[in-house]
């Protein structure tokens, strides 16, 4: 187990390093004219040269990368070209907003989806399962932006229950902010529900077919004991991994959802950054998103290892 722990953490670090290199390389591919973006079009050659030197754009690639990486790890992420603001506080604030949304979505989606998936799997082939499979299939097929727009048009505009925009003034209290957060998190939750529910269902069905279930039944144990004590333990283990994957999906899906609801989150910031070709901002934002995702995976793997006796005790 210790060996597994060490290995896993090492891989985490290695993967992040490789990923950061890849992103840095991709961003450096930008043929854009950085100096014009910062100084404006009519800048003089001298000023441009000075800027180039200041930003370290004339150094070889690996040196630039090393510079950026050391700065990043120290907490100095530089300034945004477009907004002329320090990047880190901006990104972290937006990240906080996005995470809030993601967390609410997960809280809303995960318990019912696991429960529904479980019920569907235990009643394989019966009407409940068929209905669940059908509905979840359609839900999975609806892109986030379609779902978001439907919810806005129906709930906000027609029924006028909730606000349609999720722009929250930064100093608003949680209570004030909450109604605005409901629709976007519901949007994210809807697809998440279908996705996790389906995976749970498949896991339960597969587990019910295992031989040890027969052994348990032939001991005379009640159905409840067989399911809750024997099957669930094994069937839900992969669900932990699924939840981590869903966080990864959320990070992507939120980009679109934040656009639909005009929510000041990280995704919206990234779209803006890319439209503006704001390199440092792109780098900072994407790196933090990737780090969060990789962390979630790491935690999920470690949790899985801790809960699975086969790995824990080897």
């Amino acid at each position: 187990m210790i060996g597994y722990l060490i290995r896993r953490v090492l891989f985490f670090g290695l993967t992040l390093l490789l990923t950061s290199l890849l992103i840095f390389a991709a961003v450096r591919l930008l043929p854009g004219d950085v100096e014009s973006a910062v100084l404006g079009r009519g800048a003089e050659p001298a000023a441009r040269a000075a800027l180039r030197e200041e930003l370290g754009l004339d150094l070889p690639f690996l040196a630039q990368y090393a510079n950026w990486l050391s700065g990043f790890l120290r907490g100095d992420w530089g300034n945004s070209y477009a907004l002329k603001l320090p990047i880190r506080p901006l990104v972290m604030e937006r990240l906080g907003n996005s995470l809030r949304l993601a967390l609410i979505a997960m809280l809303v989606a995960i318990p019912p989806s696991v429960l529904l998936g479980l019920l569907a799997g235990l009643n394989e082939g019966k009407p409940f399962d068929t209905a669940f499979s059908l509905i979840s299939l359609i839900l999975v097929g609806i892109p986030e932006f379609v779902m978001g727009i439907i919810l806005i048009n129906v709930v906000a505009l027609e029924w006028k229950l909730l606000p349609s925009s999720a722009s929250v003034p930064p100093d608003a209290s949680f209570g004030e902010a909450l109604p605005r957060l409901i629709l976007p998190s519901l949007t994210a939750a809807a697809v998440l529900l279908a996705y996790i529910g389906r995976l749970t269902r498949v896991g339960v069905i597969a587990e019910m077919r295992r031989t040890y279930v027969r052994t348990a039944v032939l001991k005379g144990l009640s159905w409840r004991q067989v399911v809750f004590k024997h099957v669930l333990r094994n069937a839900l283990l992969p669900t932990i991994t699924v939840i981590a994957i869903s966080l990864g999906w959320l990070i992507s899906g939120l980009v679109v959802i934040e656009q639909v609801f005009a929510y000041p989150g990280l995704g919206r910031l990234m779209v803006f950054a890319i439209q503006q070709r704001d390199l440092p901002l792109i780098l900072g934002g994407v790196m933090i998103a990737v780090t969060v995702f990789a962390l979630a995976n790491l935690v999920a793997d470690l949790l899985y290892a801790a809960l699975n006796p086969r790995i824990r005790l080897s």
Partner: protein
Amino acid sequence: METPILSIDNLTVVYRLQGVWREAIREVSLRVAAAQTYGIVGESGSGKSTLVQAVMGYLSANGAVQQGSIYIEGEDWLRATHRRRQQIWGARLSMVPQDPLSALNPALTIGEQIAELVRRHVRLSRKAAHERAIEMLRRVKLPDPESIARRYPHQISGGQQQRALIAMALASPELRLLVLDEPTTSLDVTTEAAILDLFAELQADHRAATIFVTHNLGVVARMCQRVAVLYAGEVMEDAPTETLYSAALHPYTRLLLRAVPRIGDSTPLQAIAGRIPSLRQRPSGCVFAPRCPIATDLCHAHKPPQERAEEGHLVRCHHWRAVADGSLRVEEASSALRRREMQSAEISFFEQLLSDNQNGAQATVMRAEHVRVRYGARGLLGRLLGKKPPFRAVDDVSMRVPRGKTLGLVGESGSGKTTFARSLIGLVEIESGEAHLLDMPLRGTPRQRAKATLKAMQMIFQHPEESLNPYRTVGQTLRRPLMTLSGMSRVEADRAAAELLRAVNLPADYLSRFPSELSGGEKQRVAIARAFAAQPALILCDEPVSSLDVSVQASILNLLAQLQAQYDVAYLFISHDLAVVGYLADYIAVIYRGQLVERGRAESFFTPPHHPYTEALLASLPLPDPRARVRRIRLPDDQPSGGVPSGCRFHPRCPRYLGEVCRTQAPPWQRDSQGRYYRCHIPPAELAALQAEREG
């Protein structure tokens, strides 16, 4: 007899397959009394699993009872409600299944899995139930039961898992009926012997009626008082064990008994022609008629009824009287049939090729010297990546295989026998030592070797289902070696492939069939044909018959013998079954934990002195003879994990352990008068004397 615990009458169970109901078992009747062990013998497709499911009351979703009844202690089991079943399961009726690891829940401790049964039926407190579980583990002779109870299934060995399942099955004090579904099939021979000992001992305590389902005739002979022989869903014969083995009346039973290789008996095995009918293809007359050497038109047209030949002996055959009084000789009829079949196999094309056989006239075909093979990670990087620590699977093995002869290599799982073979052919790397095939060095992976080297040595694998590519036809599979190794053109290869099929007694139209359309035995024949395609000098046979039914094993063994005689090919025959090896081999070598411990000529191999491990192996073999005395030489369960023992590797388990010397010094090779070699500290004369007095 007293009221039977289990009464099955005229039971027919059907399955719904692709919309059609098919009979899995038909009109099966039997009665089992208390303290009686009843054997059910059947090959694959016999319906024994269905019978087990029906007795347990746990048929699969697409199964149903069409007619008949099952009574357990006078209660109508088929009509029992689900609640009633839950009361009986585990309390009065329990089962020991075939594969222990998959039968246990990987997420619960052993102790808990037993304790919950006790809590459910005996209604003890948690603590008391846990104590009881430990008590049961002790009764099944598990060392340190408290520790085992705390462990998870994957942390204990296969033999220990099976003992734990036995403990679970016997946990209830009210147990009346015990069903054993091939409980020792997945275990090593020595472990199996110990478990069978355990069953015998425990039965004296619990006195439950026991059904022992198996395909192994030796196990049945040892453990059961009565036997029912199942074939294609019907009971062919039902008799007391001694009667069945000495005076069987059904042709199937008689042929089956003669299809099992026996140590010291070199009469040719009886192969049964044809294949076991699948559920869809069951014949309408007598189910055995298509394969029966004495079948008449009557047999093909009408199903024979079950008749009483004498008290307690039932047969389902039209001609049993003729068999009983000797007017119909089943074995002779069968032999005559086989002889006629073999004569028609003409392989002229091959004979032509044989004339330019490049295998030469050397006496020794393969020579291995001090071969060592290591598994596991090399260096820090490997450990970092999580690979297992290194261990030596093969440690200093040397041997010589003479041309056209068979060397049998015997060992249990983990002995290194398969690894050794794979290292010769290049699938595994040889760490040190040398091997030569007809003067060509055996080095590197198959890709690195010359075509000539590959051509001269081929291999037959253990599992027929995996031996052939399921996406390619038989013809495509056979053509490859002919074209790649022998350099034939497509046209020539087609011709040769057809003849290869004939050589293994398969019809030429099989060329266009896919492996999924072939039975296990037929697949293995194709694999043999493929091995012979490039006319090798040596064929490595890795447990080629271990996965096959008994009736099919015999025909494959006979085929191998016949082909060896025809083509002058040498075999390195690997198996865990000494009897099988004894049937084919000219020389035998025994391997234990990567080292050879004994080798010698086959004819004299089975007389003492033996290496103590060989002795234990011989004593563990269940003989298909109920009158044979069970020799009690038992090894402690399984090979302990952990490092290699110092001195003699076998010393922790050796029943003839001398003392300090075995633990500290590696034993020397001893040689006895008959040219047999073995590694032990006990000299031959003394060992022979010790082992002879055991016999007496």
